[in-house]
């Protein structure tokens, strides 16, 4: 027997998941356009310009073209895992958008362990990348997958530790509570109290989302296209959408943890949240088109020799100060 509250919760969840799907799709379109336009302007060229005014219909054309392309599976590939991987990459993302507070009242699911939920389910992406590389029966695929796994596993640790430092200060895993514990003005944000954690989080976020300069998993100069070498059409499209969705999640969480979430001068609300998240997303795009890719040993050295000890030190220092 379902009582009225359960039905209410169910409807709320369905609406939230549908909204998250729309949000993922819209973000993918907007970010693809921004990425290509930014790349163009950084390299002193206009970028997409002719398809629609200033090229705004470009991502739409790309999406429809990808849907109209031949779906292809190599003869030696494991059919089930091969098609499971792109879906497994995109589907958990929808869950990640639920606990994020976009505004004071704008949360789909106000769970007390919101940040843990996000960290737990975002790890599923690694599994998807591994399955994709493994099942496509391609040497570039498996090499890219191996890199993606070792990189994601490594960068998850400093990421977790920097998040933990913030939760030490707030005393809560609830994202809404973390948002409201910060003030409206920039000097009241966690960024001021935890600059080192913010830096570690940001660098680890680049590693987690496989973005340049840490996009070793799909380094085209050595691995063709890494784990998605054999994916055509929307198989590739889903990986692409998932990558952008994870970028949005990572930046949203960063906004909540360090930049005050929906808190801002004059009036709190989703407008501040969106502005901060997109500022971080633009930073990620900017970094991608500015810095060259690092070598794999450098990538792991940055993590194990610098980020991890710094994150541990930061956590211990935070704990010490909080106890004082």
């Amino acid at each position, binding site marked *: 027997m379902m009582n009225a509250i359960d039905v209410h919760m169910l409807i709320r969840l369905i609406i939230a998941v549908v909204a998250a799907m729309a949000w993922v799709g819209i973000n993918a379109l907007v970010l693809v356009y921004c990425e*290509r336009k930014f*790349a*163009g302007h950084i*390299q*002193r*060229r*206009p*970028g*997409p*310009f*002719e*398809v629609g005014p200033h*090229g705004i*219909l*470009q991502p*739409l*054309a*790309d999406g*429809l*073209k990808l849907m*109209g*392309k*031949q*779906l*292809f599976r190599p003869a030696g590939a494991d059919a089930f895992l091969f098609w499971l991987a792109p879906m497994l990459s995109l589907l958990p993302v929808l869950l990640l958008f639920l606990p994020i507070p976009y505004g004071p009242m704008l949360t789909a699911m106000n769970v007390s362990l919101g940040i843990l939920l996000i960290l737990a389910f975002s790890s599923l992406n690694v599994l998807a990348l591994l399955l994709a590389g493994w099942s496509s029966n391609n040497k570039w695929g498996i090499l890219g997958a191996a890199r993606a796994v070792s990189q994601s596993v490594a960068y998850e640790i400093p990421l977790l530790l920097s998040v933990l430092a913030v939760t030490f200060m707030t005393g809560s895993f609830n994202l809404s509570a973390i948002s409201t514990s910060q003030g409206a003005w920039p000097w009241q944000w966690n960024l001021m109290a935890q600059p080192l954690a913010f830096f570690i989080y940001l660098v680890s976020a680049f590693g987690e989302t496989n973005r340049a300069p840490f996009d070793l998993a799909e380094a*085209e100069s050595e691995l*063709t*296209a890494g784990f*998605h*070498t*054999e*994916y*055509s*059409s929307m198989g*590739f499209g889903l990986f692409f959408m998932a990558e952008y969705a994870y970028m949005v999640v990572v930046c949203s969480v960063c906004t909540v943890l360090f930049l005050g979430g929906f808190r801002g001068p004059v009036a709190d609300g989703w407008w501040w949240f969106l502005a901060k998240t997109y500022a971080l997303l633009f930073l990620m795009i900017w970094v991608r088109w500015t810095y060259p890719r690092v070598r794999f040993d450098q990538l792991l050295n940055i993590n194990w020799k610098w980020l991890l000890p710094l994150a541990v030190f930061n956590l211990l220092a935070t704990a010490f100060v909080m106890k004082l």
Partner: protein
Amino acid sequence: MAAPDEVVPPEIPASGQHAIQPPVVKAKPVQAILDLCRSMSLWPMTFGLACCAIEMMATGMARFDLARFGAEVFRPSPRQSDVMIVAGTVTKKMAPAVVRLYEQIPAPKWVIAMGNCAISGGPFKIKENYNVIEGVDTLIPVDVYVPGCPPRPEGLLEGFFQVQRLITGKRWWPVAEEVQG
């Protein structure tokens, strides 16, 4: 020995595979929109054989900017690319790789033969030549030929416009005025 002329199969159509038979969607307006989208997002393959590839790169750079027409997404994997720009001399040793790459591109796909070498062997079409394929259309169906040694970036852009015309039946962009003097 040069590739003999009779290798060229006469039945290779001038335009390769711009019409998929049967069409993906049966409705005509939907097909038209799909074709339009295909023509506006021609992703080339990261793939160059000789000096024409330098001009191809110049086409993607600031002065000419292939990105304006949505075609700057050079995909490293053939599975994700739509257009194969054969930019340069195809040697006999390279030929199997070129054919394999062409076969690895999922449909719909188009081929641009860029430069005289890819079209006909160019300066290597001589009696002493023993290792150059005289025209990449002896190996794979070519849709658009862009002559020149090497062609200017404007030429490659015009080649892309011709591919768009093959797909949608329309040239979308204005023709540059002829400058006197």
